[in-house]
């Protein structure tokens, strides 16, 4: 997964990340946690066409969420997998201390298999530090995740 964001790029200030986050509110890194219906096609549509709304994407970029014109999602100026759409699932897994979304974020951050338990535990233990209120954006969550990693002896190397 060399094409992914190295945690280093996460380190660039979250303020600057804001400036390049594509889309805006409810889009990409602007997505709020605990979100509602995301404008998916109505069910009858989904069941007769299995379709997608908007333009078809083709996995050409590391992150495609339909929010930006060219489908590239950046964080701190670097391309990365757009994890913003799984922040709800991530928050639940962090609260519980286990789950697929937690593993997925660890893998996307290129945390080695041997350190993933440490990552999961650090996230779980710092739930209150990462998730401070109900109206956070995905981008704010990511910034807090990186801050927790930096403060952890085993995880700092993935965030530096």
């Amino acid at each position, binding site marked *: 997964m060399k094409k992914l964001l190295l945690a280093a790029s996460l380190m660039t200030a979250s303020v600057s990340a804001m400036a390049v986050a594509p889309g805006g509110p409810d889009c990409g890194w602007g997505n709020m946690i*605990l979100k509602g*219906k995301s404008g998916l096609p109505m069910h009858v549509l989904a*069941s007769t066409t299995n379709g997608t709304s908007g333009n078809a994407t083709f996995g050409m970029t590391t992150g495609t969420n339909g929010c930006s014109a060219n489908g590239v999602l950046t964080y701190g100026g670097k391309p990365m997998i757009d994890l913003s*759409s799984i922040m709800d699932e991530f928050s*639940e897994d962090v609260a519980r201390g286990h789950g697929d979304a937690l593993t*997925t974020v660890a893998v996307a951050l290129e945390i080695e298999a041997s350190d993933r338990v440490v990552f999961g535990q650090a996230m*779980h233990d710092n739930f209150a530090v990462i*998730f401070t209120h109900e*109206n956070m954006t995905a981008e704010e969550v990511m910034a807090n995740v990186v801050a927790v990693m930096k403060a952890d002896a085993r995880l700092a190397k993935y965030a530096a």
Partner: protein
Amino acid sequence: MPLDFRLAVRLLGIFATLLALASGANALPADKERPAGIQSRADLHEVARMPFWLRLGHYRSSLIADSGWRSYVDDSRFFLAPNGKHDPDAELQATLEAMFAPAGEDNAHVLCRYPLRTAWLAEVLAIAPAALPRVSCTDYEQWRGHVNASRVSLVFPSSYLGSPSSMYGHTLLRFDPADVDEGSDWLSWALNFGAVIRSDDNSLFFAYRGLAGGYPGLFSMMRYFEKIKEYRYMENRDMWEYRLNLTPAEIDRMLAHVWELRDIEFDYFFLDENCSFRLLELLELARPGLRLTARFDGAVIPVDTVRAVIDEALVDSQRFRPSEATLLAQRLARLSPHEYRLAWELTQDATALTGPDFESLPAVRRGEVVQVAYSHSRYEQRQQERQPEKAKQSFALLRALNATPSAPMEVVLPIAPDQGHGASVVGMGAGYRDEEFYTKVRWRYNYHELLDPVAGFQPGSAIVAGRVDVDLYPGGRVELDRLDVLEIVSLSSWNPFMPRLSWRIQAGYERSLVEEGRQGIYQVNGGAGITIAPASPLQLYALAEAALEHTADHKAWLRPGLGARAGYLWHTPLGVQQLEASGTCFYGDQYRGRLTLRQNWDWVENQSLRFESGVEYAGSHDSRFVELGYRYYF
């Protein structure tokens, strides 16, 4: 790949000659002594009729087209020859010529655009790599780098509760990297074929166009977690994943062809040229010996394509990924009545978290209760726009979830959809109605009725498209008993955590008792109501209904009515039992009622026996019947 070496050498000769003539160029190290002749053109024609070439162009034989061929691809950009859609020969010629064109701009060469087509032609015609121009295909290489696949799974999202029309399901492919088991399949790539809906479309036409064509169908790829979000979280559809035993070379062929189909439009048809059919075509290109598309003549039901893939020994292993609704239902079933009540209180008022009732529970049980309350709050809010108050409440429960113990859940595995009965039915029966014996002959196009064997289906869900029952009476009288165009029934058990309505709709022709006697009636009826499940195998339901009917005898051309229906479905070990009472008051003070008892025996796989008995009332008349029928599913 069948390869006639002598043929290849000859063809190469033709090409060298053609090319030399056309451009005076130096491209081919050629056998110039062999003249190009009709014989050789015939040989090239032979290559253009090889199954693999026809598959590469998605050609099928056509009675309408003059050439006898027609491609499924409805996009002129896919073809190199102007008449490529109808002419596999011309397309082959055009491809061959383009292969030898000078390299030009990066990524633009036909060798970059059609990696599989050109590689196959080069192999069949024994064109040495050195004979072809050196081209730089960075886009393709970069894409293959991203979609770094060494395993492929066929994914089947099954139906969601409350929407039997989704029972037909869907299929997509997932491409996993080699180390997926040590990583996360959420990050794998999903390949989906679906209609692309422009956002300015009027929603009224969605379903119509989906059925009748008119939407372009395209392949798209996205991270698998986008699909997990869509099915598991938003639509509450369980996902079944079938890991295929494709080899690296086969996956390589498949992806090379997927690239050829990038941004290429097919017309999308719900019934036949749908998501699942296109995936079968890809599988046949990956492993040419497979017999998949040929099994389907007419409708392509996604679960049947899963069965075909299993039948062709493509499946290694199977995995179940439950939807959030399935998880919530299973969690609810494991709560004691006391815990159930507490969980409900938490969903209404998060301050109950500090109440004595909650705090006196063992820590592990507190975790379960909070999980149920949180899952419910998310289940509810995923159906609506984000509401700040609800988000606040969810967040309080999320914090509580963090403060209580949690263990990964052991999921009860349902029976896989591929284990379900066949969608079509033929049947025979014998019955006695109003002092006459009759023989019943029945046929159903698809898909599942309430009484059918429930394994692999959602209990209480039914969808029927096309059903005909004919009664034969002694003396040769033949009566069409019913002809259903469509029937959909959704009996979703209601509980406060997942408060779902039940509903049904039916349209067709039916012989019914009216005041004038038994008559054929064209009718449409439907309604909505509530189902409860006092015990898991038993569902009690009650619906309020409306009906509209037409018979030749009516004074009014159309006759509306209002009614109600109630009954139970009991999923016994033998099979489903149903008792149902219904009554309708039609315009003109016509009252009609019906009481029916049915018991199915799931006899052996894909066969069943059904006992049915009922009485109909219309004004002062009544009509009774009893029938025993046999059904074969295929």
